[in-house]
């Protein structure tokens, strides 16, 4: 990238001001898509993705220096419409047309899962990366709960989910599609029926399993014109049984063990349910400084035996400055549960450092697991620009495994908390008053008073005194 900078300067010089003015103003290109995945439990997951790209004069300055990389996490964020409204305003069509008409707050927040994200990154425009575009990608995933919103029924339609239907594509969009997962859960016959019947389907390997998607293209004029609106309906031909959902190969759980307000233990359980393949996992933990970790108590066990991580990076915390950072590469044996545990002591905070609701507890951010999980079905390498957006959520490095990043649940830890009630305030106030009174009294009692001799004055006074002495009058 260091070479690209002078080259860009050269181009700038050659073209001059006129060259830039003559160039076609970069047109925002929007791709939007909605992926609907009916789950065997009867719940429906819907994932919106909006990607905007624009060319910009803002250049990337060299390679990313890893020294300046920062990782920050806010363990708690209560989602509400305040998160959604500004997010929607970033969309080119706002919520006027296209897929974004479905984004109605009162439906989206009546779901059992809600995840909303904004990603922004520079993208190379050509192979040598001489110029870049910026990409803004907004994603929103919700899971509609069959028990809550569906009143127990498992059939779905766009209207029932969002209380809206699709009418027209966003005029700015270069691509606007709805994908519906119609993979046969049972091998023998179709379990799911989609209405209207899809014109095209798309097959791919997602998270290591083969998936079939029905595609509805909003830019395809026939799609809307037939009925003036598009209301996709899902019908279960054979209602799925109430069975435990299939377990993913990698999942994790985190909890605080122990009781009392002095000590505790952070435990992370890493499950590898793959029947015969072991794979490594990169575990990243940031723990606030007020949980003082005892690093010597770090134990990693799988299948009853000690598991030695092949790489450990530990950065101890500094009080009030930085949290603990613990990063480990752990090999998870096939079909095993690995327990990573580390003991901690709860620190006493200064009384001004407590949050306004200290008895709620303090949040500890989730651990982050990054792994290449072996897949069941080999995937073929894909062209990222051609494939749907959701594909790039699960990038495949080679055919045999796929990349997964998991976040465990955040934890709530109680710290020893003083009783911040009225007696406490009274004690604080009395102590202050007593301290002030005592201080001034002590000052008065221990101070020794003595009269200071007036300093012999300036030249004029000395002269005057000289004269007075000569006259026989007492000096000034």
């Amino acid at each position, binding site marked *: 990238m260091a070479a690209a900078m002078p080259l860009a300067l050269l181009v700038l010089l050659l073209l001059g001001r006129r060259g830039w003015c003559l160039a076609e103003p970069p047109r925002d290109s929007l791709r939007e898509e909605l992926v609907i995945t009916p789950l065997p439990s009867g719940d429906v997951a819907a994932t919106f993705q909006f990607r905007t790209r624009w060319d910009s004069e803002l250049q990337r300055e060299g390679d990313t220096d890893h020294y300046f990389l920062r990782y920050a996490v806010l363990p708690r964020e209560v989602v509400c419409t305040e998160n959604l409204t500004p997010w929607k305003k970033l969309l080119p069509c706002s919520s006027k047309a296209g897929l974004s008409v479905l984004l109605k707050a009162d439906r989206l927040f009546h779901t059992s899962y809600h995840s909303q994200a904004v990603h922004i990154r520079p993208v190379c425009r050509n192979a040598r990366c001489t110029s870049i575009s910026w990409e803004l990608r907004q994603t929103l995933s919700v899971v509609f709960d069959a*028990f809550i919103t569906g009143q127990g029924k498992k059939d779905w339609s766009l209207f029932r989910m969002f209380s809206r239907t699709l009418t027209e594509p966003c005029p700015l969009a270069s691509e606007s599609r709805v994908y519906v997962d119609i993979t046969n859960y049972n091998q023998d016959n179709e379990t799911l029926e989609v209405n209207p019947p899809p014109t095209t389907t798309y097959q791919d390997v997602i998270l290591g399993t083969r998936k079939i998607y029905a595609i509805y293209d909003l830019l395809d004029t026939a799609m809307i014109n037939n009925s003036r609106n598009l209301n996709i309906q899902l019908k279960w031909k054979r209602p799925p049984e*109430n069975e*435990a959902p299939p377990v993913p190969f990698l999942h994790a759980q985190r*909890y605080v063990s122990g009781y009392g307000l002095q000590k505790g233990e952070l*435990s992370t359980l890493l499950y590898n349910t793959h029947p015969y393949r072991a794979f490594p996992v990169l575990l990243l933990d940031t723990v606030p400084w007020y949980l003082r970790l005892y690093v010597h108590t770090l134990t990693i066990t799988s299948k009853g035996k000690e598991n030695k991580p092949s790489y450990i990076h530990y950065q101890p915390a500094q009080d009030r400055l930085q949290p603990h950072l613990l990063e480990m590469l752990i090999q998870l044996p096939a079909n095993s549960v690995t327990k990573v545990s580390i003991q901690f002591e709860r620190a006493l905070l200064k009384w001004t450092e407590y949050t306004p609701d200290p*008895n709620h507890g303090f*949040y500890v951010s989730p651990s982050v697991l990054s792994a290449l999980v072996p897949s069941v079905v080999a995937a073929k390498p894909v062209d990222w620009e051609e494939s749907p957006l959701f594909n790039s959520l699960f990038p495949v490095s080679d055919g045999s495994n796929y990349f997964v990043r998991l976040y465990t649940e*955040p934890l709530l830890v109680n710290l020893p908390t003083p009783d911040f009630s009225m007696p406490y305030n009274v004690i604080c106030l009395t102590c202050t008053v007593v301290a002030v009174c005592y201080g001034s009294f002590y000052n008065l009692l221990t101070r020794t008073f003595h009269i200071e001799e007036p300093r012999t004055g300036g030249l004029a006074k000395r002269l005057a005194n000289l004269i007075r002495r000569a006259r026989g009058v007492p000096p000034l």
Partner: protein
Amino acid sequence: RPRLSPPVRRPDARTPGLGLRPAVLSYVAGIAWFLALVFPPLTQRTYMSENAMGSTMVEEQFAGGDRARAFARDFAAHRKKSGALPVAWLERTMRSVGLEVYTQSFSRKLPFPDETHERYMVSGTNVYGILRAPRAASTESLVLTVPCGSDSTNSQAVGLLLALAAHFRGQIYWAKDIIFLVTEHDLLGTEAWLEAYHDVNVTGMQSSPLQGRAGAIQAALALELSSDVVTSLDVAVEGLNGQLPNLDLLNLFQTFCQKGGLLCTLQGKLQPQDWTSLDGPLQGLQTLLLMVLRQASGRPHGSHGLFLRYRVEALTLRGINSFRQYKYDLVAVGKALEGMFRKLNHLLERLHQSFFLYLLPALSRFVSIGLYMPAAGFLLLVLGLKISSLHEAEVGVEEPGGAPGPSVPLPPSQGVGLASLVAPLLISQAMGLALYVLPVLGQHVATQHFPVAEAEAVVLTLLAIYAAGLALPHNTHRPLSCRVVSTQAPDRGWMALKLVALIYLALQLGCIVLTNFSLGFLLATTMVPAAALAKPHGPRTLYAALLVLTSPAATLLGSLLLWRELQEAPLSLAEGWQLFLAALAQGVLEHHTYGALLFPLLSLGLYPCWLLFWNVLFWK
């Protein structure tokens, strides 16, 4: 030269009258203060301190009475068929109402067979379902638990739990996960689940690790129901080792009792309406005494008691079906539970605003710690007065200056007086240790040599060692103490021993009163007078009788009789004795299974201390 002023005469501390009068006054004041606790200036109305639960209104919509009854019938049928907890049926049903279901198996070999519950090698399975809150990331949770014993009670509670789960699952307002827990072998299952949830092993329980968790538990409610209709709901607050839940949780229960028009009782007693006349306070005194006895026992009175160790505020609600006319169905109970859960769901912080230490003379009245503590303080003051008067007496013997005392020059044997105390102290502590260790350890030896069962062996060994303690010490101190002390000051030996014993007792009672007021107060009331009076002169038989009557074991027997008397089911002495034997076995068992501290406290702390006074009494 004539004296200008009369010589200062120090009051002789050894004259009984002067030392005794303030002590008697203080003791009487302590008892009177305790009795006065039930009168309105000292007992106050309860009030909700937690803002998050106070002002907000909730509307209960639970209407699944039929569903609950159907679930209960199915559960009872499946249970009868399988003879144990129908785990598969529970899993299936919980999954069908939309919960995330997990099971946990556990096993525990009790130290000796439990005869009241008829169990020894216990193994069972807990089933729990988690309702994931749509509004939060599983950081906090509430628990509704139903303990199932070996008999087929509590199936209505399971039915109501399932119906409530189905109703709760359809709502979107949950901000905390709700865990619906059905435990087998009642409290043993609860203990196993709690230990596994917090990943600790306190009692040597063997259990499989939990697969699903839901963050920090904020509050828990335990439910016990054995009939389709109830006449009243009884609430139990006393937990393991006398721990109590935050008073706000009880206030919450009371709020919904009033709102739903339910008849709610505390200790099985209705609350008196009229506090101005004498009747109300007298009735309150009964409830208060029942609470003191229950709290002093240190047993978990319901499965909520085990939650308190983990700082989870918890209550047990018991449906009572008596012969009253007006009955409530499961919908009324369900609505109360729904309301409580919805308000707990509003909590922003853990329950911490209200009192953790209180006494309850009625459901809507409480006595705060600041007001009941003086009662124990006065009792402990008796010991303090005795200690200071004894100390003065000792000093008076040693330094005969000032008062016209015996001016015999003392031989330089200051240290020998203390050395003579070592033997009785060691022996009594060893007796305590034997009392703690031997019954469980030696049960197999006992069963081999005597025709008794293990549980009987434990109880009888316990009693035998206890009685042997009475015979041992006063025979053993003689060779040591007589030789040294008796020559110069015959009183010094026992006075030193009594001084040590009094300090020991005062320290122990002081600590107990701070952690479990009821136990401390009960022990202080019984042990203090005998301890203050014990001396090797005067009517020894009377003192001995008094001392035996106030020994820890006799206190236990007396408490049991008083307990049944207050419950209006008085016992004959023989029945009382049977109950006493059962209580001894239960006490030892609860120490081993739940970690109750009463047994080690009595055997390692108070019994040796009491033996010291026995020793003083028979000092020669």
